[in-house]
């Protein structure tokens, strides 16, 4: 197994495009995590000058809520990771190097496993970034901080890891059926921002949360901030394990279909 990850690593170690894209993405995430408080403060101050009700100042960075806040934010950016993974997947078809792998002696199953491991490694790296960023933000912004406070909602970074892995199985499927970078990225964006939102709108409320990207996105729901309470909305405050179950079921389905295609089609 690790041998397969080692092969994937050899393909990427000197691939500049990959490191530039991933570096930019991780940099953007850090910028968002550390800048979002300033942005929110700006908005609340501006609004307060016009608003009849005072909107309370709030800190996004206090333990334990920081975990929920930044993982929810990070959820919006996983499309970028999806695009990076799609580029790596479709490269193997564009350069025909998938043939190099199979002719060299990998089984089709090995190839699938290698890419699934690579995908997991990418998701882990992102989760680790969140863990580090969250710790720095939490420890520097929480009054009378204790380790217990830091650990209270630590489930969120792990839930985010699950969210990313489930999501990347969906991306893996798209890359495997379409094979061309442009087409695959196009379909991913079209589905994410147009097709599934329309489906959600048309389908009954009982079903729409279980659409693939909805299920994945609902694992970590909108944080229950003071801002929301002002509007009288109460959101679910923990990790949604029901959504995680649905997302995992989709991941198994997409993973299974991807495996079937890789196993049975001409390469």
């Amino acid at each position, binding site marked *: 197994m690790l041998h397969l990850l080692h092969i994937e690593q*050899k*393909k990427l170690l000197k*691939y500049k495009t990959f490191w530039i894209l991933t570096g930019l993405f991780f940099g953007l995430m850090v910028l968002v995590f550390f800048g979002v408080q300033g942005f929110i403060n700006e908005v609340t101050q501006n609004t307060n000058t016009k608003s009849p009700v005072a909107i309370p100042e709030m800190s996004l960075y206090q333990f334990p809520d920081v975990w929920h806040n930044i993982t929810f934010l990070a959820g919006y950016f996983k499309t970028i990771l999806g695009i990076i993974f799609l580029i790596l997947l479709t490269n193997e078809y564009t350069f025909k190097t998938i043939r190099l792998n199979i*002719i060299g002696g990998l089984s*089709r199953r090995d190839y699938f496993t290698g890419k699934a491991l690579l995908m997991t490694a990418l998701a882990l790296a992102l989760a680790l970034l969140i863990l580090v960023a969250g710790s720095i933000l939490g420890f520097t912004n929480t009054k009378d901080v204790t380790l217990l406070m830091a650990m209270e909602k630590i489930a969120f970074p792990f839930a985010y890891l699950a969210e990313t892995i489930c999501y990347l199985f969906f991306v893996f499927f798209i890359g495997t059926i379409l094979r061309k970078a442009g087409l695959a990225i196009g379909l991913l964006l079209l589905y994410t921002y147009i097709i599934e939102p329309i489906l959600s709108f048309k389908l009954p409320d009982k079903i729409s949360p279980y659409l693939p990207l909805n299920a994945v996105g609902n694992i970590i729901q909108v944080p229950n901030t003071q801002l929301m309470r002002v509007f009288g909305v109460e959101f679910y405050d923990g990790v949604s394990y029901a959504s995680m179950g649905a997302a995992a079921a989709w991941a198994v389905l997409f993973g299974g279909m991807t495996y079937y295609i890789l196993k049975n089609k001409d390469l």
Partner: protein
Amino acid sequence: MKKPVLSIAGLSKSYGSLKALDDLHLEITEGQVFGILGPNGSGKTTTLGIILDVLRPDRGAYYWFGEPAHSGHRKRIGAILEEPVFYPYLSAVDNLKIIAAIKGTDNAKMDDVLEITGLLERKSDKFKTYSFGMRQRLAIAGALLSDPEVLILDEPTNGLDPQGIAEIRELITRIAARGITIIMASHMLDEVQKVCTHVAILQKGKKIAAGSVEEVLHDKKTIEVAANNLEKLQSTLMSLKEVLSVTQENNKLIATVEDTITPEALNKLLFEKNIVANHLALRKKSLEKYFLDLTTNQS
């Protein structure tokens, strides 16, 4: 009995209505330099693609080293399929390291294979900067990296200049001399004649002939003969010094004769021995001529 290397049993594959491969059977044994000869579109690359698990057959099976094929077999095989494929953004060495990692071999032979293929000086340059000839040679270096028992080459001299062609052919002959089994697809008759020991000729996905190169691609004259008593005819033909060999085909005998012998002359010789032939025909075309016609008609 030589050890089996590859057995192909009834492989068929279609692309839509086009039959790329139609019930192909082949046997390749250890030490052979086996040419798969045929015009473009005859199913050569499809065959190689299937036995390397890059393409899936509609029907049929293939066996490597006498066992049902699995991925472990391919670690014992070095292969090139169609054009050379490598990661363009990596150097020759880094690409070869990936092949070594896949095959589970060390990098000890890296410089050797780069030396053999004349790429040692350019080994740190990125693959995308390589010329076509260099790419082809790197593909051969990659195929040789793991000390393979079998080498599969798909049109290895395609697109090379005359000097490059000569170099590659010489390289193949040297590799074959080390006892490595070579399976080579080619559309060039003279290439197969120069390099191979055995050959199968494909046309539109069907095997039309197979055997040793001498058997299949000989350029000797052949005459079909038949008589009421085939046994007597056969022994008589074999006694004639002008007849080089005799084989039976259905109820006819095929006599390979010296170039000076015409059907009339053979008839006269037989008549002198009290045999009346009831069928006598110069074979219109040897397979070689047939193949040349095929390829020239195509192009």
